[in-house]
């Protein structure tokens, strides 16, 4: 995926204005148009607005596309995966016009944070754009626009989170594979008797990576660190689910 806001070139379906930006919508991979909102201005970071209602917003199942009505072929797009949050802003102290405020995750956020001070010097360095405002000329559209963004955000979970959530949803009543902590592994393999020193754990580690020194180290750590075992026993005594 591409992080942050990107500049786009639009080729419209059909002739004249009003066609969808067909070259940007990946229908073959299931992307579809959720909403078209004409009369929307777009403001990146703290740059001045273009002009009121000067573009058209296309919200798809994967991304937000804004196309200027003036240029007709120029615009900006951002994937829902990059939109960290969105909110309806109506407080004139926060921004003069009612708008949908969004925060954008950029490539910079993943690697370093040292570009904040530079962002004012570049008129349009898109990699530093962390905020985007969408200003519909009709403010009564804001709530439903907000809801559309919510719906689309839920269609775009993190790839890893999606897999985990799917696994969890399927799990219902059967063993799942989330690992929350080392305690869980201990719990899973621990027989109910007292005085247990986890030989199985050490064996399986030893076989799995073939490094016996490492396996022994792990075993020693398990043996030497009695604090957790004591805590376990106390808790087991306390809730009465054991013995």
């Amino acid at each position, binding site marked *: 995926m591409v992080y942050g806001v990107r500049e786009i070139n639009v080729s419209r379906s059909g002739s004249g204005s009003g066609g969808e930006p067909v070259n940007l919508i990946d229908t073959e991979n299931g992307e579809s148009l959720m909403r078209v909102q004409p009369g929307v201005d777009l403001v990146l970071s703290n740059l001045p607005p273009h002009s009121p209602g000067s573009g058209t917003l296309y919200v798809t199942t994967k991304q937000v596309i804004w196309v200027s009505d003036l240029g007709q072929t120029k615009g900006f797009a951002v994937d829902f995966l990059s*939109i*960290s*949050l*969105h*909110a*309806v*802003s*109506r*407080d004139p*102290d*926060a*921004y003069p016009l009612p708008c949908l*405020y969004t*925060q954008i*995750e950029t490539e910079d*956020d993943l690697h370093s944070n040292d570009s904040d001070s530079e962002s004012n010097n570049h008129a349009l360095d898109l990699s530093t754009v*962390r905020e985007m405002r969408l200003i519909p000329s009709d403010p009564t559209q804001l*709530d439903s626009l*907000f809801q559309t*963004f*919510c719906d689309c*955000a*839920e269609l775009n*979970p*993190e790839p890893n*989170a*999606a897999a985990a*959530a799917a696994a*969890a*949803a399927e*799990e*219902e*009543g*059967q*063993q*799942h594979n*989330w690992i*929350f902590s080392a*305690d*869980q592994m201990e*719990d*899973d393999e621990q027989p109910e008797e007292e005085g247990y020193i986890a030989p199985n754990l050490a064996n399986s580690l030893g076989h799995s990576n073939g490094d016996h020194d490492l396996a022994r180290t792990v075993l020693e750590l398990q043996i030497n660190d009695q604090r957790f075992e004591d805590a376990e026993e106390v808790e087991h005594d306390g*809730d009465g689910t054991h013995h």
Partner: protein
Amino acid sequence: MLFFSYFKDLVGREVTVELKNDLAIRGTLHSVDQYLNIKLENTRVVDQDKYPHMLSVRNCFIRGSVVRYVQLPPEGVDIELLHDATRREARGG
């Protein structure tokens, strides 16, 4: 699904959501979904000097993957319940 269930029980309470970009937003928990996306109402930014324009937004949708912490109201934390739920979860059901 433990945290999903748990956060669902906190709907209607005041929480503070701290994002990975250090922004902390306080508001009433409106809803949460399976990806731990969070919707807040009547929000305000904790560090208002840093994010003055975020001062007050009525609705706010926060992507689950950008959340670092959720600060819970003390009275919303039932330690016994959480303890049991955690153990059940750890045992796989």
